[in-house]
């Protein structure tokens, strides 16, 4: 029934947890949603969230229409067969994504980086 206070295993575990938190942060979770990244065969483009806009992303099958507003984004239409991207609906949390694989278009929600939280209420 003797258990040590601090062992090598502890150091490893704590290090792993710290890295886990860091990973959460880097994946955009360390901030409120601030922008979406639209990825197409042509490249990546970062679009800030804000007033409602309509984006067109071109892929091999045609144009995927993306609606971006202050809270997130969704795929409005796409030239794919199953329309899974349209059916996914809105994404609004940093780290969430919606993608049209046949047309090779992806939309990722990105958080703002350090200082993303403006205020925390009780």
């Amino acid at each position: 029934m003797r258990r040590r206070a601090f062992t090598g295993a502890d150091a490893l575990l704590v290090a792993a947890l710290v890295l886990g938190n860091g990973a959460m942060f880097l994946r955009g979770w360390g901030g409120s949603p601030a922008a979406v990244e639209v990825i197409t065969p042509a490249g990546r483009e970062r679009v800030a969230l804000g007033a409602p806009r309509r984006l067109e992303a071109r892929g091999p099958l045609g144009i995927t229409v993306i609606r971006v507003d202050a809270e997130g984004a969704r795929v409005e239409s796409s030239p794919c067969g199953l329309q899974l991207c349209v059916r996914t609906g809105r994404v609004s949390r940093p780290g969430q994504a919606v993608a049209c694989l046949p047309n090779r278009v992806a939309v990722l929600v990105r958080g703002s980086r350090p200082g993303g939280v403006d205020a925390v209420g009780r």
Partner: protein
Amino acid sequence: MRSAADPRRLARLGLLIALAGALHALESLLPSPVPWFRLGLGNAVVLTSLHLGGVRDGAWVGLGKVLVGGLLTGRLLGPGFLLALAGTAAAVAAMALALRAAPPLGFVGVSAVGAEAHALAQLAVASLVLVQTPALWSLAPLLGTLALAAGCLTGLVAHALSRALDDVTDP
């Protein structure tokens, strides 16, 4: 294994629940830089109970901590109570698992895991039940890291407390 009604065990449970509840209540009254964030000394007592008596004893002290703490601060059944309950339940589960599954772990590691589980469970409950905005998860890395640090500290406290009680209560 002693029987469940062993008076020594009951006395120890009573002592630990009172201690955990008092610590929990006191901490909640102290000002904190990040809202909701506490050192979690009550969890050090919970860990001690887990170590000395097993999962059930740990669960009793966890429950007692939240109830007694709630009674002392007069905030029973409010949102803070719900969060404390969720966090403590997660911490007990995580620490019990860690104690069982990883013998080479010391108090610090087990406590750190418990603290992280505590913080994440509270975020989950808060985002589902209380605040309902996904932006709440943006706090996860910050609260998680703070919880880790606090967990390491309380692990050391738990170790000291376990040693002290071990000497007193075990034949």
